[in-house]
């Protein structure tokens, strides 16, 4: 028998021959005892190989444990993105808190600094203090003329204070005297 005949037998057992090829081989098998024996031998060897490969099967207990651990892994994997989201949310929440505290501290420090500076370096300009029965009103002006014009509109005692360079020189007058 030649090698191509063995390959033909294998393809026959593998079910890979065309209808024409199969029928031709079946015809030969009825007439060629050597070929028929080779086919029977190939079948037996195949069964032996298939039986041998069955040895690779794990025991029932092994398979059961593997099934359980596989399913555990699958479900764990499915919920992993949620846990990641939780972690992200936690980070975001703490970032917000820290940002809020930092903003408060910044505002507090800024306010303190502004207050300190305004005490140290008063605003340049003129201040009109109007004393009325209802109480005291204070207005800021950049020029003395504006301050006087404003003060003259009131009938009560006014005070114009020059704050330029922190001099705090005051002019006190009654209504319409500026």
């Amino acid at each position, binding site marked *: *028998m030649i*090698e191509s005949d*063995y*390959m033909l*037998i*294998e*393809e026959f057992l*593998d*079910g*890979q021959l065309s209808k024409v090829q199969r029928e031709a081989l079946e015809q030969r098998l009825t007439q060629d005892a*050597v070929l028929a*024996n*080779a086919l*029977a*031998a*190939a079948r*037996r*060897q*195949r*069964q*032996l*190989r*298939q*039986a*041998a*490969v*069955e*040895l*690779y*099967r*794990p025991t*029932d207990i*092994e*398979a059961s444990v*593997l*099934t359980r*651990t*596989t*399913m555990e*892994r*699958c479900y764990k*994997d*499915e919920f992993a993105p949620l846990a990641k989201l939780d972690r992200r949310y936690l980070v975001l929440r703490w970032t917000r808190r820290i940002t809020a505290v930092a903003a408060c501290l910044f505002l507090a420090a800024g306010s303190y600094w502004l207050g300190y500076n305004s005490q140290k370096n008063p605003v340049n300009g003129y201040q009109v203090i109007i004393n009325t029965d209802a109480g005291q009103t204070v207005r800021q002006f950049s020029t003395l003329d504006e301050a006087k014009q404003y003060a003259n509109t009131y009938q009560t005692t006014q005070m114009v204070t020059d704050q330029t360079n922190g001099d705090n020189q005051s002019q006190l007058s009654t209504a319409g005297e500026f």
Partner: protein
Amino acid sequence: MAAPPTANKAFEAAVNANMSRLIALARSMLGAPMRDAKQAEDIVQDTLLKLFRHRDTYDWSNGGWSLMAKAVARSVISCRRRKVGASLEADPVLSDGLGAENDPAAVPITAETMQTVRRHIEALPPAWREALILREQQEMGYREIAEMLDVTESQVKTWLHRARVRLAGSLREHLRER
């Protein structure tokens, strides 16, 4: 979005029913059940995990064996390629024919004989072994195997033939030594 409960149940049932065969498939394709038993289990678990992520897109009504087996086979092949590169070298040495006169399978099938066959299957070049397992255990066609192994159909035929010849020769030698 979570998969519907029916997909979960179908997937679990498929894993439960096929785990043993999947492990056997991975081990036989890897050809290293004792040396690196964990590798086969890891490959099966990783593959099932990937299938689980898309479980609602597959049809599990037929038990899922075909889908799972093909996925595991692909994983084993890609795992082997990563380890040894894409070389699928063929062994040029061929034993004599597979004649019925030399039929090594014409002996009673004992546990020892099957262990011997299994050892010889493990000793085959990886590509030959994969082709043989996919053909004889998974009953895949030559074309399908060729696509999976990324070779031509004639290459698959050659590998199958060489693997079978070598296994027959090895077994014959083993029986002669006894």
